């Protein structure tokens, strides 16, 4: 099982940003200007939590909250 905070901490480590900057409603595009870096971050998160996503999963992910929720629910489904 993983929780939202663990996902946020991983994002913060990847982006070298304080976790406090990662509010649920923070948009991903405000954190990551280049889409290439967003791609790398998503791969990093999957490696960190041993999950596999496909593009379809990311369709409605716009904010930090959406992303953490996606990982938490996928980890729950996998366990």
């Amino acid at each position: 099982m993983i929780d939202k905070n663990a996902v946020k901490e991983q994002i913060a480590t990847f982006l070298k940003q304080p976790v406090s900057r990662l509010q649920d409603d923070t948009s991903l595009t405000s954190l990551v200007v280049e889409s290439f870096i967003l791609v790398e971050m998503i791969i990093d998160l999957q490696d960190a939590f041993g999950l596999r996503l496909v593009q379809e999963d990311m369709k409605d992910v716009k904010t930090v909250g959406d992303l953490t929720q996606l990982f938490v629910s996928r980890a729950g489904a996998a366990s």
Partner: protein
Amino acid sequence: MLDENELWVLSFYRSSEISGSLFFGRLARSMKPGAIQRDMTKHFSDEAAHAWYWTSCIEELGAKPIKLSSSYQDQYLTAAGPPSNLMEILGITQVFEKRVVNQYGRHSQLPEINPIVQNTLTKIMADEKWHIEWIHDALKLMEPEYGKDLIDKTLKRFWEADQEVYRKTMQEHEQRLKYLVK
């Protein structure tokens, strides 16, 4: 000497090679050891060399590269959506590389092409063909993990995005690219 349109096109090529290099460089750094890590590192170094070839080509022709804000790859990500796993990254890259080889091939066949541009295209196209090969092989190796159907569906989706991006690029830069489609 380069005219304004040709300088823009060569600068566009340079900018796309830089974007490809930066992307693969970042990925190669975080990739697990193995064949894909090795080939991706080579791919990254090729793209960086290509950016240098274009820079050098433009300078040899007495011009300076134009600074362009967005690359062809950025438009791909907008049209197709960002890839979310390695298979999707390789899929979109495969489609992109085929487009590049096609574009460079057409450019190299222009009847009055400058020999410096021709040499640059020839050098780069040899590498680009290897890029298509290694990605093709890597996608084959991923079939047991992702399933052939999913890989085929992913490639099809990216092909459709490619058509869209190419059409839009040709439309948006019609004047600049006109001499390439004679």
